[in-house]
């Protein structure tokens, strides 16, 4: 489950400083080259998506499929526009649930990781149970949560936190353990105590791993929100899907799914942005070793 970031450290001998710049500009100048590079990354997936949509549209037309079975993309987009207020209102509910649940998952995941790494006994006692906790089908305990907490936001937030804390915890544990033991020894000889060693060496070493966990958790959080709402809710995109399903409003259901996916992508993008801002050294090193 833990995604390991590839930590590459360019080892350069010799006394010439390596330039921190990328390859020398090619013909057409630097900005032209950059523009082409962006285009090379953005155009293929965009064209691919357009092709899929075109085939979908054409297939539905040719086969003369019922809209309630499989709507054409144009029908989905016009349905999306028609129920835009409904989508926005319900999206807001789901976004709030995800935001709170996700933050809770970070607190829980990082907190557990720090606890488990702070004592060998704690790790031995709790790590197996941490893994076992993931064998429990968490959506299945959602109904119990509803019994305990009612139909408000709480059971959804708890389900989201429970499904998404695990990759955060496991990755952070791996990250803390990836700290070079020699670096910890060096800090000891400088008179650094346990907490100073944690803050100066172990926590920064763990950050790239933590961000990998956060990206996996972002996808899981959206799934958790939908499950949480299916069990018992009166608002939210998951709830909306159930309602639309009862009305066999297939186009509107597709539209809702697109909005849910957009929320997941936005969360993922936010995590990636935070990573870029918080770990400039990590990306500088990677760029360097890729060039």
């Amino acid at each position, binding site marked *: 489950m833990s995604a390991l970031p590839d930590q590459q450290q360019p080892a350069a*001998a*010799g*006394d010439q*400083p390596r330039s921190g710049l990328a390859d020398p500009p090619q013909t057409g100048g630097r900005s032209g080259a950059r523009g082409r590079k962006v285009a090379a990354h953005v155009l293929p997936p965009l064209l691919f998506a357009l092709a899929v949509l075109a085939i979908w549209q054409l297939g539905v037309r040719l086969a003369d499929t019922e809209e309630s079975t499989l709507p054409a993309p144009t029908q989905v987009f016009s349905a999306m526009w028609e129920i835009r207020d409904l989508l926005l209102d319900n999206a807001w509910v789901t976004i709030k649930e995800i935001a709170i649940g996700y933050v809770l998952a970070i607190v829980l995941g990082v907190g557990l990781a720090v606890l488990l790494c702070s004592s060998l006994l704690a790790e031995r006692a709790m790590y197996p149970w941490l893994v076992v906790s993931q064998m429990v089908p968490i959506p299945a305990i959602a109904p119990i949560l509803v019994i305990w907490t009612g139909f408000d936001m709480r059971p959804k937030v708890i389900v989201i936190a429970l499904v998404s804390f695990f990759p955060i915890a496991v990755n952070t544990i791996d990250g803390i353990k990836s700290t070079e033991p020699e670096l910890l*020894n*060096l*800090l000891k*000889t400088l008179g*650094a105590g346990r907490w100073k060693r944690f803050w100066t060496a172990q926590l920064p070493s763990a950050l790239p791993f933590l961000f990998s966990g956060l990206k996996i958790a972002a996808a899981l959080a959206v799934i958790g929100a939908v499950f949480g709402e299916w069990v018992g809710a009166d608002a939210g995109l998951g709830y909306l899907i159930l309602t639309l399903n009862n009305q066999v409003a297939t186009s509107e259901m597709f539209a809702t799914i697109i909005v849910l996916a957009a929320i997941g992508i936005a969360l993922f993008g936010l995590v990636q942005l935070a990573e870029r801002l918080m770990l400039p050294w990590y990306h500088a090193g990677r760029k360097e070793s890729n060039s």
Partner: protein
Amino acid sequence: MSAVPVAPAKLVVEGVGKRFDGDDGEAVVALAGADLTVAPGEFVSIVGPSGCGKSTLFNIVAGLTRPTQGRVLLDGEEPASLLGRVGYMPQKDLLMPWRSVLDNVTLGLEMSGVSRRQARARAQEELGRFGLKGFEKRWPSNLSGGMRQRAALLRTFLAGRELMLLDEPFGALDALTRQTMQEWLLDVWQADRKTILFITHDVEEAVYLSDRVYVMTGRPGSVQLCLDVELPRPRRFELHGSPEFVALKQKLLTPLHEASRRQLDAVVG
């Protein structure tokens, strides 16, 4: 053992040994018993093949490992813990990739509670001497091997300990960079005469840099020979060709070669 210096010693290692208890109940002796003395301001090297216990000895002097026999005296006293008392530079530069060069070299000051502003000011003064001026804002991954090593040395210097342990600091550098770094290290050391205990497996490097060289051999390791290097200072690269230099080198190489020959014979049978 030859001439022990008269001045009160900075570091005395008395019959220090280390035995590790293996998992199978069999004890492994990593260090059989080492004696050495380093006077204040001296540059002393330990030469020996890998596996002779020199790194174990280093970890003991740095306070990272407790010896199972013998004792270590710092300024004539046996401290409760050597941690935080001795400057320590391991083989790897251990620069933290998430800190700029400047924030890496101030690590020691930061750990002893000096304010960030003061620490940076102190580091700025020394950047030029360590060939890092203009590079202080870079990430360590953007530095050459030689610069990384100089940054690690500056970090050790700035920690401000009287005695510094350097464990093969130039071991990973190419031969040419290595030689210029040796010359540079002598210049830096000459300027403020800190006490240095230096580990290497390169006999030439040991003779070139040191006032005294200890030879460690064997498994378990022990100090076999102590040789005073009475070559004039300041030393320059040309010294390598002088007959005195070659003679000293030969004197050190002979016991090292014999020991490794014996080891090979024991294996080959």
